[in-house]
Every structure is written in C-alpha cells, then in structure tokens.
C-alpha cells in the first residue's frame, strides 16, 4: 500500500462538455409556435441528427443555434459560446454550411474556397478540401458552370474550410443523386472521425440511419423522440399489428402485446387465413411519430397497399 507519489497515473479525463446544449428553446411566428420549448444535447465528436418532416421547425432551430435567428425564449450554448454574441474569431470554430444561389458566379471554385480560407486562422489545405468534397475536377471552373449538386458541395467546402470544431448542416443532400449522397455521407463520416462534431437536419430517414450517432425526431416544433436510433426503435416500437381474414373480411388490430389477441383468435377460429403479426419498422415508427392525425394502423395500411414487395 504505497502512498501516492506525484507521478501516479493521472485521473481519467472528465467527459468534455457537450458541443451544443439547447434548453427550452422557443420561437413563434405570427402567433404560431414554430419551435416549442425544445431541449437538446449534442456530445462532442458525434453526429447528431435532427429528423423531421418539412415545416417541423428544423431549420428554425438550426438557425437559432447558428446565431442567425433570435430565440423568443430559451438558451443555446455552442462550444461554450452564445451564438448571438460570436465575434469573428469565434467563427473559426463554428462551421455553417449556408446555401446560396450565387448569381455573381464569375469566381472559380478554387478562388472562392481560397477566399474564405484567407479569412481563417487555421484552414484546411484548399487542394485537399476540394478533393475531399469532390470538386477537384471543377477547381478551375467558374461557379456559374457548376451543377446544383456541385454548388451544394461548394457550400459544404466553404462551411468547413475553417476547420471548425462543430459543423451545422441543414438538409445537406436535398437534390443529390444517390452516388453523390453516398460520397457526401463518407465525407461527413470522415469529418466526424477527425473529431468534428456534426449537427445535421434531414427529412431522409436513411440518411439519419446511416450517419447519426444520436437522433431527435421533431414534429410541429416539438421533440417526439430522442436517443440513438435503436433506443427509439425499442421505446416506440413496442406494438404489433395483427391482421387476418375473418368471416366479415380482412381485419386489422394494433395492440401493445399481440399474445392475448392471438390466443383469443386461435381459440375462436380454427382457420385463420392470412394471419400476420407485424412489428413496426423504423420507418413506420418515424412516420407515426411525425404524422399529424393518422394512427399507426392507417399508415401501415397505406404502406402495405402501395408497396410491391
């Protein structure tokens, strides 16, 4: 039992503070609560996905975190800073991928990225950044000649050129073709692997599934579910839809536990053609969380009638 000497093993380092903490954030427009008392925490070095349909309040939430919109109530802490009070130096730490429909597009891609790199304290190398964002071939081309997807990639390059600690991405792959989306996902993952925290909004479930370490599902300004995707699946997927064809025609019932219903059915009807027990998929859970009126059953019916497996 030796007494501790000054050179004992160091204490394990504490968890670093979260990259983003949102507390009771609220914003209203014309009397309507677009963001309704939401709270979020995003740990460092993780990809956080804010998933929800259009009009759910994702963009407004992100813009308040970026400091581009003023909240009506609540607090936001981004890397220990108040987004409404950022000075220019602070902006080296925060990457915002902004969309722009650039009309004055006579600069080349390289010139544009080099411009923004020149304002930064510690930017990525421009050539490597262009390669990483898939713009190497278009480096010497004028921005006016870029396709929509290439413009978006340029937006990303400009948003991350400062080597920020945290990057905000608002619906980044809207309009991308599948190959471009995949490449983009790899870029985001590699950014995360380099230690960057990513906050991403999307209405694409597959994108969130692929990228996000943790997720919040938002609908009409409120968080409907939060956690990792498997947690959400477990928490909100604990129901089953039992369907069969009875004497009165096709029947469907959604119950938290199918066992009693199944026993009842099998006892009452010796023949049960088309008996099926289905647990909701992640997509169905998501749709149920974000749909306004229809219960899960209705959505399941719609899905089943439209798809051709």
């Amino acid at each position, binding site marked *: 039992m030796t007494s501790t000497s000054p050179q004992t093993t160091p204490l394990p380092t504490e968890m670093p503070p979260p990259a983003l903490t949102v507390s009771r954030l609220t914003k209203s427009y014309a009397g309507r609560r677009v963001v309704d008392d939401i709270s979020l925490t995003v740990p460092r070095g993780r990809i956080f996905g804010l998933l929800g349909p259009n009009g759910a309040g994702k963009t407004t939430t992100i813009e308040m975190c970026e400091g581009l919109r003023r909240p009506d109530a609540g607090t936001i802490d981004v890397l220990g800073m108040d987004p409404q009070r950022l000075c220019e130096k602070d902006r080296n730490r925060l990457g915002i991928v902004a969309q722009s429909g650039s009309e*004055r597009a006579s600069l080349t891609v390289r010139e544009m990225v080099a411009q923004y790199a020149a304002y930064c304290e510690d930017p*990525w190398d421009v050539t490597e950044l262009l390669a990483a964002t898939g713009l190497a071939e278009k480096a010497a081309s004028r921005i006016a000649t870029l396709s929509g997807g290439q413009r978006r990639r340029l937006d990303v390059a400009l948003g991350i050129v400062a080597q920020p600690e945290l990057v905000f991405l608002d619906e980044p792959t809207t309009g991308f073709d599948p190959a471009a989306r995949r490449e983009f996902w790899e870029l985001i993952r590699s950014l995360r692997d380099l230690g960057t925290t990513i906050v991403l909004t999307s209405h694409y479930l597959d994108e969130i599934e692929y990228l996000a370490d943790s997720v919040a599902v938002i609908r009409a300004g409120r968080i409907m579910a939060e956690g990792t995707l498997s947690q959400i699946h477990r928490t909100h997927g604990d129901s089953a839809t039992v369907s069969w064809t009875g004497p009165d025609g096709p029947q469907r019932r959604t119950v938290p536990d199918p066992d009693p219903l199944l026993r009842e059915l099998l006892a009452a009807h010796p023949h049960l053609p088309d008996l099926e027990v289905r647990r909701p998929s992640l997509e169905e859970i998501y749709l149920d969380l974000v749909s306004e009126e229809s219960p899960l059953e209705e959505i399941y019916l719609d899905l089943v009638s439209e798809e051709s497996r």
Partner: protein
Amino acid sequence: MTAAPSLRPAAPAHARRSPGLVSAVAMRTRVEMLQFYREPLQVFFGFAFPIVLFAIFATIFDQSWTMPDGTEVKTSTYYLAGMIAAAVMTSGFQSTAEIIATERDDRTLRRLAVSPMPRSAYLLGKVVLVLINTTLQTALLLVVARALFDVPMPHQVLTFAWVLLLGTAAATAAGVAFASALPSGRAAIAAATPITVVLSFFSGSYIPMSELPTWLQHLGYVFPQAWIARGLRVSLLPEQFGQEIEIAPFGLSDMPVLPLAALVLTAWLVVMLVLARTTFRWSPRDAG
C-alpha cells in the same frame, strides 16, 4: 471514388496566423475586381456609356458662353464635369446599391457574415473597387474629351482630385445606405436606375444648370451629384464662369463655392455612413 477523403490543415499548428483587416480587405478587393472585370460586356458598356453620352452632348450642344474678357467656354467642357459626376454616381451609388442588394438576396452576405471575415472588410473592399473604377472612368473621359473635343485639362488639379475623391466617398456611402433602405434587392435595383438618371437632369450632367429654372437648380444642390459637378467645373472652367453663369446655391452668395461643396459632400458622407451602419443587414428581410 469511394476512398475515404483525406484532409489536412494548410499550415502546421505552430504556424497559425491571425489574418487581420488589411489582408481581408486585400482579399475582398481582389474578389470584387475579379467579379467585376470578368464580365467583359458589362465592363465595356459600363465604361463606354458615359463616354458615348459625353460625345453625344458635346456634339449636339456645340455652343459656348462668352466671358466678359472675351474667353470662350465651350459646353463640352461643362459636360465633361457633368459626365464625370454622373459616372461617379453610377459607379458609387447605383452600382454599389444594386450589387449589395443582389448579394444580400442571394445570401452571399450571409455566408460572409458567418465566416471569420472581419465585417468591415466587405464595405471597404467595395469602396476600393469604386475608387479604382472611378479613376479609370475619369481618365478615359479626360482622354476622349481632350482628343476629340479639345477640352482643356483641369487647371486646378488638387481641386479636381479632392472633389472626385470626396464625391466618390459620399456616393458610395449613399449606395450602401440605399441598399438596405428598401425591403428587397429587386426593389433596390429597380429604384436605383431611375433615381440616378433623374438626378442627372438637375445636377448639371445632362443639361447645364443655367438652363434650368432657379428653383430646380437649388433643388439639385440638395444632392451630392450637383456639388461634384460644380466642384469639377471650378477646376476645369475659368473663374469668371463661376461668377457670371453659375448661381449661388441656396442663395448663399457670400460663401465661396469650394468650401461649401466640401461641407455638403461631407455631410452626405457622414449621414449616409450613419444610416448604413444602423440599417445594414447581412440577411435578407425574411430572416428573423
């Protein structure tokens, strides 16, 4: 192309720099110049228009005033001053307002605002661009006036220079303020041209001031363009012209014209700067 992308910093950690305002302004100037001069048709017509207008006026209204001592002052000399003043307004006020309004609407400003760029670098870059363009335009006008119309060069070079400089600054400040005054970029663009054109009619650019009714001349002297033209005329025309033909703006016949011009232009500059500072938006109007 599925290999994991590699990224590395431009400079090693110990070589981090702290880019300052000067380097940011230098970069913005470079960007402004590239964006302007890479549109050859716009450049050509932009520079040619005042020259063509000048040539037209100097040819059509080929008259002269006769001074008491017999010297002749040709209208072409008058128009040179007026055209330079109009060009200053086009470049400083109209062009600046239109471009800022456009860059706000297409979210270029917003992207700059969320970057580490020092914010004043944006307007300073615009000012440098306007100064460069105005100098070029003025040089072209002087060359054409001399070569084709035998217009004498300014006999008070210092006056010519400071009137041009101060006038450009005031016009640019007005352009910046105007870009934020109207609710949308398109409104600003639509309004800038008529304002610029109409102003030229009672600033001594399209019509000599002496041809206008007195009340309209006084109205013209409320605005900077008339003072730029007047100040340039002092440097280009003989002193007698000012005494015989020009009016005393606002009836202030005791005040010498040049200090009055400096006063009015500076007042415009200051007021417009204050307005610009308080109303400038980096985001389009729909942002909360």
